[in-house]
């Protein structure tokens, strides 16, 4: 055997591998610490303070290891490599997000996470709500996995929301239930859900609005597809942030505003005043679904300068944010309440709000959110 050649090769191997490690080490030492990781949407560990106490208990070492781990050079690239490898291994679910077909990411809703007891708890809360607001109508929007089911990975388990929606419909009565599942299924070939975000698109919300208008009934304003204006073309939403997988970015679109600008007065949580439903500042960066109705607020009041006299109360989650701009012109005053963030007694709050005596009430949730949390009882007794 050529020992000389072997040794030469061995030395080359050593130099090569050590060079890789040293380059990374030096790059890591030169890199400045960052506070947050925008890709992960998370605060990173910073250098821990040293004290005798934390040293003796081993807490300092633990923090320090976390610190090095979080601040390691090229963090985002390493995560990308992890994802490429996972994909090469044919992995179809990342961080509870399904890597569905056609570049769709879909949240994983496992049947066992939506037990009958949980469903029943939300439905009985809904019963209580309907007893207090008998005129209310209920729209529960299925999430993408129950509508674009054929796009899920093969055999992927999912919570079939159709059966639950049937149950809910029976419970509240067909006349009070706005059934959007068939409507959305009919339009399944269109872009009704974002590929990278768990919400429905403006177009999806528009079909919801059509169903709403038919049910109440309101003379709907018919928008045309061509009217959709694109406000952002490289939207990567919350599913992308969680799964960190290559997915086709989405467009964020809006229908043209029906009313003149300035004809609405929008108050968020009683103090923040706006004239528009859309918050331009969120179009920068990630999480741009917040563009609609300024993300999350316990109570949003929308007032329109008009001769109309209608009032609408919407009990909702974030799915409603894309739809409310579409139905706003039907009412003089709209109260939008997110029970999870509303810190007052709803009954007291709504007292004397129905000044015209014809208040419409709409419960608008995405189906899975509704089952997980519809805390009406606690909002009523708060």
């Amino acid at each position, binding site marked *: 055997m050529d020992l000389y050649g072997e040794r030469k090769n*061995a*030395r080359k*191997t*050593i130099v090569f591998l050590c060079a890789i490690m040293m380059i990374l080490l030096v790059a890591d030492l030169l890199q400045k610490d960052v506070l947050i990781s925008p890709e992960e949407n998370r605060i990173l560990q910073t250098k821990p303070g040293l004290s005798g106490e934390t040293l003796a208990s*081993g807490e300092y070492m633990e923090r320090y290891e976390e610190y090095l*781990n979080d601040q390691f050079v090229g963090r985002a690239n390493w995560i990308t*490599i992890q994802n490429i*490898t996972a994909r090469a*291994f044919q992995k179809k679910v990342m961080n509870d997000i399904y890597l569905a077909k056609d570049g769709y990411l879909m949240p994983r809703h496992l049947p066992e996470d939506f037990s009958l007891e949980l469903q029943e708890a939300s439905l009985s809360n809904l019963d209580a709500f309907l007893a207090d607001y008998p005129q209310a109508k209920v729209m529960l929007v299925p999430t993408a996995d129950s509508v674009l089911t054929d796009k899920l990975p093969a055999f992927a388990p999912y919570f079939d929301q159709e059966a639950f929606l049937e149950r809910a419909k029976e419970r509240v009565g067909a006349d009070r239930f706005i059934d959007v599942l068939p409507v959305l299924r009919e339009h399944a070939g269109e872009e009704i859900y974002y590929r990278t975000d768990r919400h429905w698109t403006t177009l999806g919300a528009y079909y919801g609005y059509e169903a709403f208008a038919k049910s109440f009934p309101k003379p709907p304003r018919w928008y045309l597809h061509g009217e959709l204006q694109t406000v952002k073309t490289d939207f990567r939403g919350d599913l992308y942030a969680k799964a960190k997988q290559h997915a086709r970015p989405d467009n964020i679109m809006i229908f043209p505003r029906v009313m003149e600008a300035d004809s609405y007065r929008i108050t968020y949580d009683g103090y923040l005043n706006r004239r528009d439903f859309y918050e331009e500042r969120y179009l920068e960066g990630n999480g741009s679904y917040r563009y609609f109705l300024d993300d999350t607020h316990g109570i949003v009041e929308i007032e329109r300068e008009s001769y109309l006299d209608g009032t609408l109360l919407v009990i909702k989650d974030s799915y409603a944010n894309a739809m409310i701009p579409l139905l706003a012109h039907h009412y003089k005053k709209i109260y939008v309440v997110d029970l999870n963030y509303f810190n007052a007694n709803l009954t007291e709050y709504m007292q004397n709000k129905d000044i015209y005596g014809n208040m419409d009430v709409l419960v608008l949730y995405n189906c899975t959110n509704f089952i997980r949390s519809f805390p009406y009882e606690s909002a009523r007794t708060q």
Partner: protein
Amino acid sequence: MTFSSIFFLFRFLPIFLIVYFMAPGRMKNIVLFLGSLFFCGWGSPRGALYVCIALLFNYVLGRMLCSCENNGNRRLLLIFGTVCNLLFPTGFTIFTLQALSYLGDCYGDREKPQKNLLDFAVYFTLFPQTVAGPVVRYGQIKESLRERKPDSLLVSYGLKRFIIGLSKTVLLANNLGALWTQAATKSVSGISTLTAWIGVVALTYQMYFLLSGTADMAIGLGAVLGFRFPENFAYPYMAGSVTEFSKKCCITLVDWFRDYIYEPLAGEKKSRFRALPGILLTGLLLGLWLGRDVSFVVFGLWFAFWMVLEQLGLHKLLEHIPGIIGRGYTFFTVLVGWVLFAMDSWKEAAHYLLTMFGIGPQPLYDRESLFWGSHVWMLLAVAMIGATPLCSLAEKRLRASVSGAGLALYRFLEKLIVAVLLLVSIAYCVKTPMMLSY
């Protein structure tokens, strides 16, 4: 500190190696001892203190064993030393086994005790193998404790071995482990039989890649430092009987129990009346060393039971039937063993095993198991091939067949593959709050 943390790979290891290779001659041992102490103290400073006390204790005891002439006194010293080592708050770890084997070897005059405290300290604390073995006996490295010649072949071999071990742990074992954890957690509320089988196969290979990967890293680091540690695994899942498996899995650990517990129990003649209870008792103690819970005892006894059966005649039967049946029987026995090992309690383990064998209300398969099958097959296939000698044989054959330009290409590709493995492994060492879910 684990080998697969950024802190180890990009702070401890480079700084330690630079200082180590710059240190002249005998200074290397001081650097090695201090580095090992730091490695051990990083997790718990108190632990490092205990290790130092245990180190001094065993050093003194070894020398006393040597200088004492009276056999009765020697025996007393050995018993005293054993009891003290078992009572040390370092826990039942590699340190304990090393200390006991050292004392046992001194007592049996197999080894002369180390007179140089520094060399002994280096042996006792040597950081690469304190994580999960291999259990290195004093006699196996006593020459290299004093002096180690720098050898580029050994260092380059060590680096490659370390990287292969790292990738086995972080790429395969961690993913397989996540799959198993998910199956195990859900098994309480009910999973299908197929899911249970996918889970248990994942567990079986997770254990192999975790243990053998860690051993590879230890052996590799040892080689970089100039030591030749004994091998710890020899493709155990290819074994044709449980007895053979015990000689191929965690070799140094099983050897330790064989030499220091079974051999004295069985006596020199190995008559059945002593050998068979000896096997059972050794299995029991091995289980107890792994953890103090009923399921670990059952784990140890489970393997001992099959080894006893093999002694009683099963072995002869296995020799007369096709090898594949023997391998199947062994793999199956090991699979059940790992369930006993990995479950929190023997009750959960029993429940899981019942699910595996289709006893109970669970369906044979369900959507979830088919989904798993559709996206974990690749991981399992890579694991199954990786646990056979195939890759290593192919590499050897390729290496032997090339020369000239082919050899240059071979060497280039080898470096490339190792570098890619290193980079991908580093990627998996960067921890994110993302869940490894299946």
